């Protein structure tokens, strides 16, 4: 057996038992955030779908159903578009609560994270 074989196997077992994984459908948005000095944004689908049907954001608000294809700027959110349609201190917390959305680890790539059985299709 390889010198570190046992260690590697133990690592694999530990990873299987205690995996480090985001919740299924979590989206990291970091096209602009870190370039402009803010931590990446984490959008949890699970939290939002308890309160809104998909059609509210993906039909009424016009979010494309493809990670990275929505060119959302903070200015637009402040002006009440996209996230700003609800994040306005009326339906949900307002834009002054920067840290609640910009709560990601540094260096994260924009994409759909999470996954229980699949990590999502390759294209994500």
């Amino acid at each position, binding site marked *: 057996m390889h010198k570190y074989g046992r260690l590697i196997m133990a690592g694999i077992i530990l990873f299987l038992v205690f995996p480090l994984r985001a919740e299924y459908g979590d989206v990291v948005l970091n096209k602009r955030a870190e370039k402009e000095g803010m931590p990446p944004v984490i959008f949890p689908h699970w939290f939002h779908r308890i309160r809104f049907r998909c059609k509210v954001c993906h039909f009424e608000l016009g979010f494309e159903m493809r990670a990275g294809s929505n060119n959302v700027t903070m200015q637009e959110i402040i002006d009440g578009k996209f996230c700003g349609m609800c994040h306005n201190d009326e339906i949900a917390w307002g834009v002054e609560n920067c*840290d*609640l959305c910009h709560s990601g680890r540094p260096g994260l790539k924009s994409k759909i994270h999470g996954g229980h059985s699949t990590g999502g299709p390759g294209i994500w």
Partner: protein
Amino acid sequence: MLKIRFSCGFYTLLLMATLLLPLISSAASKWKSLEKDGIHDPDSPAMGVLQEPAAALSKLPQNTSGNMVDWVKALEDGAIHPRTNLWPETKVRIRNDDVFLEKTGEMPVVRFPHRAHTMWLDCKNCHEKYFISKKGANPITMMKILQGYYCGRCHGAVAFPLTECDRCHSVPRSKLEKIKAESRKAENRK
């Protein structure tokens, strides 16, 4: 000699761990806490303010994949009451028919329920952008779906994952006509 005994012990341990895995796994990490999910910054001021997945999801009808929640059942049973629209003038459209996709090779036929999908989505989310509203007009393949097209827009990303074969491939060919007839009846009742 000693080395062999060690290895045997190790493999016994490995085997035991593998057998116990589902048990330990479900108890330890059905939903990761935000601090330990690998994407949230544990030092962020949002920790402790944002709702934890387990706090919300453990109360909903359970499932074995994705968010470990049966979202369609949660909605149908009234466990959640997500808003359908923000603007009063938005028409909320529900469609009740089933579409049967029969060119599935050796696999059972796919029953696509419009109802479960329109409870969540609007017609325009899929039509005519990703699916043409004409029977036979969409060359859907499993490969395309796995690459994130057609059903794979959502399934495998936010809707239940592609490991759940039988949730879509649910109609054995021997029962196809019977299930089609039942589906037509149910459509009129709803």
